[in-house]
């Protein structure tokens, strides 16, 4: 690597002040610091030893935590596809099919997003901020597999510009950029983001699909269950062939239709374990989120039967279906857009959990509420912090009064 280091040293002057490519300095620096952790040392005064962690390490840990969900998502895309055409393809063919479907979305998301970021690096003359390394992988994992690639590109670019850069970049944004991208898609191209047809690769085109095959997600089936159905034997949901009942175990393992990365609670929990063990994400938000969702789910279970069939879905089914787990583990814990005080994190997470269930159960329009719940709480996070901090300020003022 000495050679590469020397090469960078050699071309560096071109990008520095008064160099030939001075304007590209920040772009050059972005690449250089990606390859080499900089030789910069602590300033004259201050702490002279520093933690080895930086934003690159931080983001790469999150990316690592997302890998199990990504790999499982790839397999599941293939599995669901072959299920719909009635072929038992086997593990590797499932995976390869999914890989071919998912990889382009990942690439488009990264290319569109990082491309936009680099435009801002050039304009702002500041080294690239690593936030998009995570957003770029989150976006593919929360969209349906058959989403047209150009939509992914448009939504990503819009999210980076209006979700992040107009606020001043990573660390300054109010809303989670990946969720914003999803929200753009959801409200802009609703047809491609909801319904029974979009979740399984190839279902919309309808070639070779088995007659009567349904691509409805479990959450969709829960939402559309009628009173009579629920009264006669509870919530029964089926796989696409209507031959097998999807159990809690199936939901937990994730071989069900859904957005690419959100289906397997198991894989998400592996990711959560990585985030919590390394100390990267807040366990308070995750835990209180699950508690909030369980609490409201349980409360609805306890209400008298017959009000709304959806009330009666056992609360633990909520936790393993839809994007709840994925949202709580990977999106709600985004430190920039969540509450910043430790007490506030409890409230923030809990309310997200509650809101997810409220939107799911009470809203007739669409069966999922994770995205909207988190975006809504992103907006309210500063308010939560405000009250927590006011309490601290009041305590301090009280100290004076006690003395006086």
């Amino acid at each position: 690597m000495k050679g590469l280091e020397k090469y960078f040293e050699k071309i560096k002057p071109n990008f520095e002040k008064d160099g030939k490519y001075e304007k590209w300095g920040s772009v050059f620096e972005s690449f250089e610091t990606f390859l080499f952790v900089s030789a910069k040392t602590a300033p004259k005064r201050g702490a002279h030893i520093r933690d080895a962690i930086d934003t690159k390490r931080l983001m790469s840990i999150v990316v690592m935590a997302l890998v199990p969900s990504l790999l499982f998502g790839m397999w599941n895309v293939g599995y669901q596809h072959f299920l719909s055409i009635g072929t038992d393809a086997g593990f590797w063919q499932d995976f390869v099919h999914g890989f071919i479907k998912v990889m382009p979305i990942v690439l488009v998301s990264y290319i569109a997003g990082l491309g936009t970021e680099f435009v801002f690096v050039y304009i702002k003359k500041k080294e690239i901020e690593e936030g998009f390394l995570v957003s770029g992988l989150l976006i593919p994992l929360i969209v349906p597999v058959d989403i047209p690639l150009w939509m992914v590109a448009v939504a990503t670019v819009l999210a980076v510009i209006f979700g992040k850069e107009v606020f001043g970049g990573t660390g300054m944004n109010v809303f989670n950029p990946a969720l914003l991208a999803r929200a753009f898609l959801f409200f802009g191209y609703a047809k491609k983001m909801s319904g029974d047809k979009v979740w399984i690769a190839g279902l919309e085109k309808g070639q070779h699909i088995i007659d009567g095959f349904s691509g409805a997600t479990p959450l969709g089936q829960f939402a559309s269950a009628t009173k009579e159905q629920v009264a006669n034997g509870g919530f029964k949901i089926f796989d696409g062939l209507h031959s097998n009942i999807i159990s809690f175990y199936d939901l937990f393992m994730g071989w069900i239709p859904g957005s690419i990365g959100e289906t397997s609670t198991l894989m998400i929990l592996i990711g959560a374990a990585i985030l919590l063990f390394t100390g990267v994400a807040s366990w308070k938000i995750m835990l209180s989120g699950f508690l909030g969702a369980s609490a409201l789910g349980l409360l609805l279970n306890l209400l008298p039967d017959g009000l709304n069939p959806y009330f009666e879905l056992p609360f633990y089914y909520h936790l393993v279906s839809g994007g709840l787990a994925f949202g709580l583990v990977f999106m709600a814990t985004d430190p920039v857009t969540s509450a910043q005080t430790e007490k506030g994190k409890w409230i923030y997470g809990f309310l997200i959990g509650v809101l997810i269930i409220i939107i799911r159960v009470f809203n007739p329009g669409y069966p999922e509420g994770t995205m909207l719940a988190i975006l809504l709480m992103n907006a309210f996070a500063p308010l939560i912090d405000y009250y927590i901090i006011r309490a601290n300020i009041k305590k301090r003022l009280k100290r004076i009064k006690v003395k006086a």
Partner: protein
Amino acid sequence: MSNIIKIKKGLDIKLVGTPDKKLKEITPSGTFGIKPNDFPGITPKVVSKVGTEVKAGTTLFYDKYNPKVVFTSPVSGKVSAINRGDRRRILEFVIDPDGKNESETFRDDKPENLSREEIKENILKSGCWPLIRQRPFNIIPNQEVSPRDIFITAFNSAPLTSDINFIVKDDFQTFQTGIDILTKLTDGKVYLGIKAGEISNPFANTANVEKYEFAGPHPAGNVGIQINKIKPVNKGDVVWTLNAADVIIIGRLFETGTYNPMRIIALTGSEIEHPQYYKTLLGTKISALTKNQIKNNTVHKRFISGDVLTGEKVTENDYIGFYDTTVTVIPEGDKPEFLGWAKPGFNKFSFTRTFFSWLNPNKERVLDANLHGGERPFIVTGELDKVFPMDIYPLQLLKAIIIKDLDLMEELGIYEVAEEDFALCEVVNTSKIEIQKIVREGFDFAIKELG
């Protein structure tokens, strides 16, 4: 008998190079220096011009805005230079010692025979006054304002610092005299923060003080943390703080009537051949200690006057800072590291478990001064709180300082903190922000606005 307070938040960083409990006396040689920059907010006015013969305790300069606060020479000799920097700002007074060890004479008397005014007068004249600092803002106090209380910490908890027990061991009687003097300067109490769980703690027998024992990781030894736990600083309060070692200098002033700023300095760090203690005077040149002590290798060295968390980067030819009792030498670490952020990092220090060094948390490490990353806006939340054991929101206070909102700074507790209390925040911060600098800027801003 004394109260134990347990500090839970914080971090002990284990580093190679703790000093052995060996003391070597070095006779004053080479030049001595006093640096006005060690005293934030002071504008020096020269009294002893170049060529003036001075004794220990002779005024070198005073503060333009408070002429009673004088700064004196630590040794007898001749002012050989006054070095200036940009805009003729005075950087240092250099004194060539003459070896006579003469001191100006000040009053020596028993504390009980002296009035508060007489004591203040004596401390001010001798140049001991700047050893005292006040909260808010961690600056030299105004002599017209009596402090609510005086707080003294009797131990260092930061990594690679001196063991105060070892420093006061032979001068305990003088320490007690200093305490007795200080009790006369406040209507409140003198509080002494000592380390919990030590069997033979010399401070356990200190009289006339309120003792509190502190257990737990750094920053348990920071006086600011101790104040916050014992009796926090409110708006309008002024408290004074001192290092235990400096109490001895004040005690000696009243016992002998001389200014004898003897300092026991710990020479520490992974780049030191034999880390140990040196008995010398305030204002000693760094090289007087480090000569022949630096490891002979090709590693670039960083010399720090002070400890690794709060000190100042200096060269061998600089002088030890006025308040510093440690000189540290660590590797500079000014080398790029290929894909350093992606390595497993079995030997990298991190407060998080993002590197595999979590397998080996108690290992003493050699850490260099590399930042390990570029500066970013604040991203991670909660990391600062984990090493900040006060009932204050550190991130929010810092942001209040950055946006220069004085009311908010006040509400969030700026009067209670000092830079050093934020040192660990700066260490663990993922975004590599210069947090202690922000705190100092906040103080400067507040002092200016409050007038």
